[in-house]
């Protein structure tokens, strides 16, 4: 059961502001979805390594070199607010 307290906790972890209406809706929907999804509990997975990359990918190496492919101007061009080449954010110290 995903109650309102848990929903608020999850939203805080996700840095996601949600309205009280959304909180109620998500609480109900996630409860329903997770109840249904709990059916995977039935499967015995003792000692099984979780799978992340589904195909066998051969390891390869490349030289760890710095390439100057883009200018700093290009990289900050999409910033919503900037000062020169710096991103503007709220005070962090």
């Amino acid at each position, binding site marked *: 059961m*995903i109650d309102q307290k*848990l*929903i608020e906790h*999850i*939203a*805080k*972890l*996700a*840095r*996601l*502001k*949600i309205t009280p209406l*959304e909180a109620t809706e*998500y609480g109900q*929907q*996630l409860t*329903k*979805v*997770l109840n*249904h*999804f*709990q*059916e*995977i*509990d039935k*499967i015995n*997975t003792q000692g*099984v*390594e*979780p*799978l*992340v*990359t*589904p*195909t*066998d*990918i*051969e390891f*390869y190496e*490349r030289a760890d070199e710095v390439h100057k*492919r*883009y200018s700093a101007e*290009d*990289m*900050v*061009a*999409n*910033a*919503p*607010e900037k000062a020169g080449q710096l*991103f*503007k*954010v*709220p*005070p*962090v110290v």
Partner: protein
Amino acid sequence: MDLLKATFKQVSDAVQTKKVSAVEVTKFFLSRIENLNPQLNAFIAVNSKALDEAQAIDEKVKKNESVGPLAGVPFGIKDMLCTKGLRTTAGSKILENFIPPYDATVVSRLRNAGVTILGKLNQDEFAMGSSNETSFFGNCKNPWNTAFVPGGSSGGSAAAQAARLAMGTIGTDTGGSIRQPASFCGIVGIKPTYGRVSRYGIIAFASSLDQAGPMVSSVEDAAVCLEAICGHDPMDSTTSQRKVPSFSSELSSNVKGMRIGVVKEYASGRMHPDVEKTYSLALEKLKQLGAVVIEVSIPLTEFAVPMYYLIAASEASSNLARYDGVKYGFRADFKDLSSMSLDDFYSETRGQGFGAEVKRRIMLGTHCLSSGYYDAYYNKAGQVRRLMRDQYIEVFKSCDVILSPVTTSPAFKLGERSSDPLTMYMNDIFTTSTNLAGLTGMSVPFGMSADKLPIGIQLTGAHFEEQKVLNVAYALENVSSVKLEVPHVY
């Protein structure tokens, strides 16, 4: 030359022998977009430099320079793939104004092959959806009947291709997002094996599941396009270094002796009678062509949807953490930054920037990865994933390709299923296991419902066995009774 019917090879050959110019071809499709897109909302950005790109191809041809196997073939690209200088949004408000400084590898490989880019295609927000209804840029419509969804998440790609607003399109597939809309719109779509195509420059949804692939009008075009985009990329460490076969020259409709697997567990599901009919007909035709049909069992496929949503939402919650209003994309309108906390800054921006379905999945994924729940959800799903993948590997020792429906029904009406997330998620029952196991999967048009909506057939192949899947699809395409039908918006 009838550009509505021509193959990639025919157009490319004609451009290279100056029978038609790349500019003429591009103009033809740009004018179709102008005329027909308002009915469909498939394109959400048109490339203002498309004609310049075509001009550059023609100039190379004039100077006898090499131009590549897709010379002058115009493509539309799903808005999940970065296109240098051309707005890329993932269908989200949070990237509404994002102009990528670089091309995704898939896009740069297409350009190297001679493709011109017409524009960017509508999709569900961050590819989270099966109907294209979660896009910030509005619904995309099915060209066969505009009251119906085109499917999703690559709905814009499927609709644009079906209505021939482009010669070819690219989609991405995390849990069926190429195959399901391809089936709903009556086109050919293939999701390559995980690791076949570079994910560099593709906006990440679920990194262990995402793959891009062609959404086109014929199996031959799919093969030609795959040759251009597949192969190792130093910019994506999960791409395979295996040699890419020459899919198009090895294309064969001879399926004599091929072993076609039919999954026992799929028989119990409820299916629309027209889907059932299409599926039975495909099996019958393959038998007539000399293929051997055998029953196979993949018991854990029953758990594919829960596994998929637990894993995909978890990976998404992590991948989407980057949208913070700092470096690029949408930022909430703050009057005074100096008096607020960084946490409030992030939360407000993300709360306003993401749509409802994306927020729901971020919440689900964050919960699955959080302390106290990680083992029960994310870890457990990963363990079952290994067991299911191993069942598939075993099954592919006794069959070459698995045949199944793509979805349980043809396209549904706009608004019909979007209110209940669980119902929407359960639509993905036939497609998600392919991504979880990293296999290749394809949809090829093979039937038509009583109310004139296309129905595709799904072919699933073992890791890196795209050729077998293409060949069975090619055989089915050859005997398909629907291949000459065209949609209402055309």
